């Protein structure tokens, strides 16, 4: 049985640029972010004894990243489950620190997806040969957005969810993005046409990309990266910033099944583990950092995390309650999210970073006296095979 004070986030950094114009590599973004996050914690490279790496720097992450950083870690965890990798890493770091295997864990991310102008969305690809599922799916021409759109279509069919309800997700995140100078700069650098707060009508009248998802329901493709430092209670006590405790974690995966329900994600399995370990409930969450690749991702995940019943997400999100200055629900993606701040392909690390900012009181859309946050990463693709990582965070 783990205690709720096993490990804490003590250092964070979000790489500020969303467009590095091809002049900085993913590895360089990872290293710079790591250095800044260690400084934020008041630690140094030599304090790090555990590395968690999704392989985004190229090559075999587990073999190469320690050398690049110049570290000799005792724990090397190379879990790669796409955008949810960092929630898995955080939960694993808590487990490894609690087991006495490590004292200071380093998680890093770097991507130049925008500079590369490449298709993103699946971080989990790799290894030799082809997965048999790929040999079944490729002929149909399912785009990334269509994959998620099919969840939205089925959700609408099964529960009566509307585009206007889904648009609540987009307007809430943009509301937060407009308060975050880095998000505004990102939208400028990525040449968004109309940088302002949006209305429900703006979203549902934007261009249809893959029915029923509109342009303003889709995340951006940016460059970016970041780092998170997680430490034992003994180390955390002497760090520069107040500790953000990792109270619980859960992980799961889901894939297409004959007769399966596409409207329920792997979060329905990971969330009870995380909330159970933390001994808290969704209703107690001040902050919900929920992977917003698309509007439907958030709606589905909010239901599966237990904020409302399955199928009731559409009516539950209505009325602006996900905004940081409204009551009745958690503040959603207060950095502006993947929809309006950054999405370099695997944005799970930013969920941890912004949740930590909130619990330190450092957000640009700060919720007064925020005490508890959930960070939920969805990796892979919601409408087919994906992974879910749920992490519950709390301050002293």
């Amino acid at each position, binding site marked *: 049985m783990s205690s709720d004070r096993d490990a804490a986030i003590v250092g964070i950094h979000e790489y500020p640029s969303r467009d590095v114009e091809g002049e900085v590599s993913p590895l360089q973004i990872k290293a710079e972010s790591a250095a800044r996050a260690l400084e934020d914690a008041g630690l140094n490279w030599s304090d790090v004894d555990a590395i968690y790496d999704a392989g985004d720097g190229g090559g075999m992450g587990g073999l190469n990243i320690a050398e690049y950083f110049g570290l000799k870690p005792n724990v090397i965890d190379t879990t790669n489950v796409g955008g949810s990798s960092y929630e898995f890493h955080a939960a694993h770091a808590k487990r490894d620190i609690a087991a006495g295997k490590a004292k200071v864990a380093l998680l890093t991310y770097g991507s130049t997806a925008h500079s590369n102008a490449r298709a993103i969305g699946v971080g989990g690809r790799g290894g030799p040969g082809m997965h048999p599922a790929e040999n079944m799916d490729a*002929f149909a021409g399912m785009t990334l957005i269509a994959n998620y759109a099919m969840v939205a279509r*089925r959700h609408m*069919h099964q529960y009566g969810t509307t585009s206007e309800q889904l648009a609540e997700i987009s307007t809430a995140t943009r509301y937060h993005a407009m308060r975050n100078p880095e998000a505004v700069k990102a939208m400028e650098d990525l040449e968004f046409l109309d940088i302002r707060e949006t209305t429900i009508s703006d979203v549902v009248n934007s261009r249809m990309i893959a029915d029923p998802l509109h342009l303003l329901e889709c995340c951006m493709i940016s460059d970016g990266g970041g780092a998170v430092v997680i430490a034992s209670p003994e180390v955390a006590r002497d760090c520069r910033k107040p500790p953000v405790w990792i109270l619980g974690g859960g992980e799961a995966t889901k894939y297409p099944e004959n007769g399966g329900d596409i409207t329920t994600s792997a979060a329905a399995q990971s969330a009870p583990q995380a909330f159970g370990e933390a001994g808290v409930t969704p209703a107690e969450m001040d902050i919900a950092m929920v992977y917003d690749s698309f509007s439907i991702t958030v709606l589905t995940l909010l239901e599966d995390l237990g904020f409302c019943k399955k199928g009731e997400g559409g009516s539950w999100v209505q009325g602006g309650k996900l905004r940081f200055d409204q009551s009745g629900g958690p503040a959603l993606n207060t950095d502006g999210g993947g929809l309006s701040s950054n999405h370099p392909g695997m944005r799970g690390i930013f969920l941890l970073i912004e949740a930590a900012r909130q619990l330190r009181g450092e957000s640009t859309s700060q919720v007064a006296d925020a005490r508890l946050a959930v960070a939920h990463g969805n990796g892979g693709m919601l409408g087919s095979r994906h992974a879910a990582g749920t992490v519950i965070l709390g301050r002293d």
Partner: protein
Amino acid sequence: MNDVKRPIPRSDEPDTAAFWQGTKEKEFRYQQCKRCNTVVFYSRRHCTGCTDGELEWKTSAGTGSVYTFSVVRQSYHPFFRNMVPYVVAWIDMDEGPRILSNVTGVAPEDVSVGQKVQVEWEEHETLNIPLFKPI
């Protein structure tokens, strides 16, 4: 004439090769376990329902229904970019298998969840592709 082709499945992928072999005869084949009755699709060597499974090949009647779908209006793929708008759908075959495919031969706005469809084979040199049209 657009000479860029639809992505053609590989016939040497170890698990799914037998399914694609069947399409040469325009047969939609799937597996079912003789012991636990689990329908296995995509095809595999092992039963996902029990550890001592005995998988048997069966042939679907080729009919099913649309579980969910999307109309793709933007694609950067060299083949599919010229196909927009087109319908991508998860199809539930009446015998149980769920397959990702396209609904063709109908205007995208006339496709709906629950719609009954039947397989329509798109012919290629090495195999045939199971697309679906409303019944």
